C-alpha cells in the first residue's frame, strides 16, 4: 500500500499531466453526445453572455452603417414585392413556396482564421432554432446550426473542414459540393462538377436545394478560377464568396416546415 502511495506521490506531476490531457481530448474528440452537448451547453451559456455584452458595445458604433444597409435592403424588398404582386395577379398564390420561414438574429462571435470555424448566434431553442437549420444573410450562405442551446447556438461556418453544402452553377443543372481548403476566408472550393459542365469565370454559384436545410437559389459567390482534377473528369472550382466572412451583419436562420415530412419519407425509403 505504501508503495502504491509512494508511486502516486512520486509521479504526481506526470499523472496530473495525463489526466488533464485526457480530459481535454475527451472534451474535444469524444463521440459521446451527452458529454459533448452538456459541455457545449455550459460553455455557450457562459461565453454567450460575455460576447453579447462586448458585441453590444461594437454594435452601437455601427448603427449608422446598419441603418443605411437596412434602407437599401428595404428598397430592394419593396421592388421585389411590387414585382411579386404583379405576378400574383396572374397566378394562383396558394401554389407559392411557403415552406421556409426566416428567423432573424445576429452573430455575437465570429471566427474565420482557424481551420474549423464556428459562429455564435444570439438565438437558441427558445427562439425555435434547432440543430441542422441553415443560416444565411442577405448576401448568401453562412453555415449550418451545429449545436443549439437554450438561448445561444453555434453555427458550423462554411469555412469549416467538414462543411459540405450542395450548390449548383446558376442557369444549369450541374450540382456539386461546396468545401473549404482552410486558406482564404473569402474563397471556398466547389467540387464534383463534371468536366462536361459549361462553366466560365464570373458564373454565379447558388444553393442547389437538394437538402432540406437550404432552399434553392440562395446566392453563394462567383467562379474566380477553375481547373480539372488529376483524373480530368471533375472540376475544382475556386469560388469567391459574395459574403465578406469577416463582417457578417444581421443573419437569418431558415426553418423548413416540411423537414419532418421529408425525413420521414427518406427514412421509410431506406427501410
Amino acid at each position, binding site marked *: 500500500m505504501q508503495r502504491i502511495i509512494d508511486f502516486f506521490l512520486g509521479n*504526481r*506531476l506526470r499523472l*496530473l*499531466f495525463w489526466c*488533464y*490531457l485526457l*480530459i*481535454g*481530448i475527451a*472534451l*474535444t*474528440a469524444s463521440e459521446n453526445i451527452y458529454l459533448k452537448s452538456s*459541455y457545449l451547453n455550459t*460553455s*455557450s451559456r*457562459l*461565453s454567450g453572455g*460575455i*460576447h453579447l455584452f*462586448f458585441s453590444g458595445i461594437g454594435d452601437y458604433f455601427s448603427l449608422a452603417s446598419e441603418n443605411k444597409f437596412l434602407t437599401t435592403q428595404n428598397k430592394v424588398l419593396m421592388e421585389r414585392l411590387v414585382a411579386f404582386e404583379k405576378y400574383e395577379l396572374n397566378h394562383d398564390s396558394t401554389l407559392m413556396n411557403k415552406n421556409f420561414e426566416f428567423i432573424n438574429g445576429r452573430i455575437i*462571435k*465570429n*471566427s*474565420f*482564421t*482557424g*481551420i*474549423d470555424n*464556428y459562429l*455564435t448566434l444570439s438565438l437558441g431553442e427558445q427562439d425555435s432554432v434547432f440543430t441542422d437549420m441553415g443560416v444565411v444573410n442577405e448576401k448568401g450562405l453562412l453555415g449550418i446550426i451545429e449545436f443549439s442551446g437554450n438561448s445561444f447556438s*453555434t453555427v458550423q461556418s462554411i469555412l469549416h*473542414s467538414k462543411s459540405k453544402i450542395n450548390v449548383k452553377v446558376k442557369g444549369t443543372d450541374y450540382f456539386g459540393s461546396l468545401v473549404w*481548403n*482552410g*486558406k*482564404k*476566408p*473569402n474563397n471556398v472550393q466547389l467540387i464534383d462538377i463534371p468536366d462536361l459542365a459549361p462553366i466560365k469565370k464570373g458564373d454565379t454559384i447558388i444553393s442547389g436545394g437538394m437538402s432540406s436545410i437550404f432552399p434553392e437559389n440562395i446566392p453563394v459567390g462567383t467562379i474566380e478560377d477553375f481547373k480539372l482534377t488529376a483524373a480530368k473528369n471533375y472540376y475544382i472550382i475556386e469560388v469567391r464568396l459574395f459574403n465578406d466572412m*469577416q463582417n457578417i451583419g444581421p443573419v437569418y436562420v431558415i426553418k423548413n416546415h416540411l423537414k419532418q415530412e421529408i425525413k420521414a419519407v427518406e427514412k421509410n425509403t431506406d427501410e
Partner: protein
Amino acid sequence: MNRELPIYLPIKVVLLILIQAFVFSKMALFGFISPMIYLLILYIYPTHKNRSLWITWAFLFGLSLDILLDTLALHAIVLVFMAYIRPKMMRIMFGLNFEQKSFRIQQAPVAQRYSFIAAIIILHHLVYFSLEAFSWSKWLLVLEKTFSTGIVSFIFSLPLITLLSPRRK
C-alpha cells in the same frame, strides 16, 4: 513597488485571456492571421513555483479561452502540454542558470529570452494547428499556418512582455 507580488499574476492572467479573446482573436491580418499572444503565460509565470499547481492553472487558463473562443478544449490541451515541457525547454535554452533557485527569466540575456519566446511560439502553434487540422493530409496547411501566425504572434509578443514583465531592479 515590487511588481512580483503574487497578487499581480491573476490580474495579468485575466488580462491575457480578455485581450486574446476580444482583441487578437478578432483580428485577421492579411485576411487569415489571428495572433496568439496568450501563450506569454508560459513566459511570465514564475519558474520555481509548485509544478502541479502550474499545470492545473495552465489547464484552467486554456479551458477558459476555449469557452470564450468555441474551440472545444484545444487551447487547454496545448497549454497543458506546453506547461509540462516548459522546464525541459528552459533547461535547453538557459542551460545551467535555470537550475539555480534564484533564476529569473527576466534577468537572462535578451537573445536567450527572445529565442525562448520564439521556441514556445513555434512549438505551441505547431501542436495547436496539428490538433485543429487532425489529419496528416493537411501537413502543408499546418506548416503554413504555424509559420505565418507564428511570426505575427512573435512580433506582437515583444512589446507585451515588456508590459507584463516585472521591472528590472
